[in-house]
């Protein structure tokens, strides 16, 4: 019996694939992705750290706003201090309302990733033309402000319609982050050719782990350390990607930043850190596009 399937990529087992290495012979590609999000006041969707009050729910709004006012700066201080690169999933409406956010990010040479217009919505009603317009609108804003188009996309709430990979490919994206199905990049089918799926975490991600599953900051830091240590060992057998997703209003809180700092210090100070490529997803994608054909999983 065949059940409905997405037909985006074939089944493939991680230890039955061609081997390759990351640049310099490294085996584990590690990246940090900050989610920088903008929310409507009294309307739409949003994260809540406690019970959600009825609209306007200013308490949750303010908690999220802390991320843009304070949390992000603290997180940038942290990656500056540790000398780590980062990438940033950015709601495009931020360029209208919070343009100063991007000064430090640009100065660091970090990557900007398309992340819809706002996390107060998933997608517009899922009509394809509206989604296409939403993607075009967000992409145009990023391109205009950064002087170059974004290469990667992550949907607000990791949401997709049946057409999203097609629309992203047609909008010029080279990779997407929405499919947490593998520890290696894989090629996805679209009606207009291949697009790369780069691993992005639904687990080692402070939003589901801390906000939804109520893990403590210490537990989340332990997840990072354990994920990293385990994957360093696993990557002896296959080149892997270890992504860490962070939100400004979650780990930007001082008490969560502290264990995060310890976890990241553990990673960069690991005895086998020389086998780790501390990078960004755009650089992973660029590298994959230059691998010999048929290296990565593909139909």
């Amino acid at each position, binding site marked *: 019996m065949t059940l409905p399937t997405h037909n985006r990529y074939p089944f493939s087992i991680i230890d039955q694939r061609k081997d390759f290495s990351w640049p310099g012979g490294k085996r584990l590609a590690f990246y940090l992705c900050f989610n920088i999000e903008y929310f*409507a006041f009294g309307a739409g969707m949003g994260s809540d750290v406690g019970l959600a009050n009825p609209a306007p729910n200013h308490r949750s709004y303010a908690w999220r706003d802390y991320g843009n006012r304070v949390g992000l700066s603290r997180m940038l201080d942290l990656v500056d201090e540790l000398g780590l690169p980062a990438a940033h999933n950015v709601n495009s409406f931020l360029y209208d309302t919070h343009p100063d956010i991007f000064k430090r990010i640009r100065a660091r040479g970090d990557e900007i990733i398309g992340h819809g217009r706002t996390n107060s919505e998933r997608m*517009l009603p899922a*009509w394809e033309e509206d989604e296409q317009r939403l993607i075009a609108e967000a992409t145009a804003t990023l391109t205009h402000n950064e002087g170059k188009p974004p290469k990667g996309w992550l949907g607000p709430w990791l949401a997709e319609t049946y057409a999203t990979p097609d629309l992203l490919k047609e909008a010029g994206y080279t990779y997407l982050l929405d499919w947490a199905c593998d520890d290696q990049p894989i090629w996805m089918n679209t009606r207009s050719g291949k697009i790369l799926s780069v691993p992005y975490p639904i687990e080692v991600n402070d939003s589901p782990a801390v906000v939804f599953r109520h893990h403590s900051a210490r537990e989340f830091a332990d997840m990072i350390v354990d994920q990293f240590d385990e994957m360093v060992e696993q990557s002896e057998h296959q080149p892997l990607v270890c992504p860490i997703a962070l939100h400004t209003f979650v780990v930007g809180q001082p008490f969560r930043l502290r264990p995060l700092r310890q976890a990241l210090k553990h990673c960069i100070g690991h005895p086998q850190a020389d086998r780790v490529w501390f990078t960004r997803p755009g650089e992973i994608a660029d590298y994959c596009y230059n691998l010999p054909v048929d290296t990565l999983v593909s139909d």
Partner: protein
Amino acid sequence: MRLPHHERCDYSAITRRPDYSWPEGKRLAIYFALNIEHFAFGAGLGHAVSNELPPPDARTFAWRDYGNRVGVWRLYDLLEEFRIPACHLINTAVFDYCPEVIEPIIARGDEIIGHGRTNAERQGQWWEPDEARMIAEVRDTILQKTGRVPRGWMGPWMSQSRVTPDLLKEAGFDYEMDWPCDDQPIWLRTRNGGKLMSVPYSLEINDSPQILVRHHSGEEFATMIVHQFEEMLKQSERQPLVLGIALHTMIVGQPHRMHSLRKAIDHIVNHPQRDKVWITRPGEIYDHCAALPVGVMA
């Protein structure tokens, strides 16, 4: 104590307003509003006559589609039979899906009223720029397909955001039909000192809420129309009033309901006091009211 208010209009009692009449001294303006809608298969919102099944719910889609394939044509015949004008609240998706449906409306000289893109969605929770773009898209599509700009608006599901009247005014609409708060047209305030007319449209004399939500029979619905008419005819001796009758192609387009509807329309059209009744369209009601001396309307 002052509660949150929409600030679109002030309170006004129906019995304490200046009097006026409809053209030729008539007292009761009646219009028939036919909702002509198109829905997405397996996605979005829609009317349902029974319990909805999980998507794609083909039977419910098909039941709605009956309205465009059969029901609307039967209703056109009914309007012709009684030689009455009507207005048509049309999702612009209809222009792409079944353009034949538009032809009789143009031939009859009836009015087309903006009714969103599709009733598979509603606009009340959208961001303002998205809503403004949708309203402009609907306006431009109707202009392009019919050569005439729509003057009136009723949102899918009568859904409104906090700024819908402002956006409609800014898009060039003259009136809207989303506020069932009165039996006379009234002015709504819009931002920057504008005003938009609200022409009464009924949430009660409306086959969708009465038959689909409240489970009334076609016969009961027809009785509501007759009773509404008789009572308002009497009330209209003291104030000029508007009676809007809202119909949906997939509901009263079903033969068993049309049978009752025909009797109700016959009751109105052949009434002994028919000379007091103006069977018209919302655009003509707007024109009459907009030409009244300042201060006559609430």
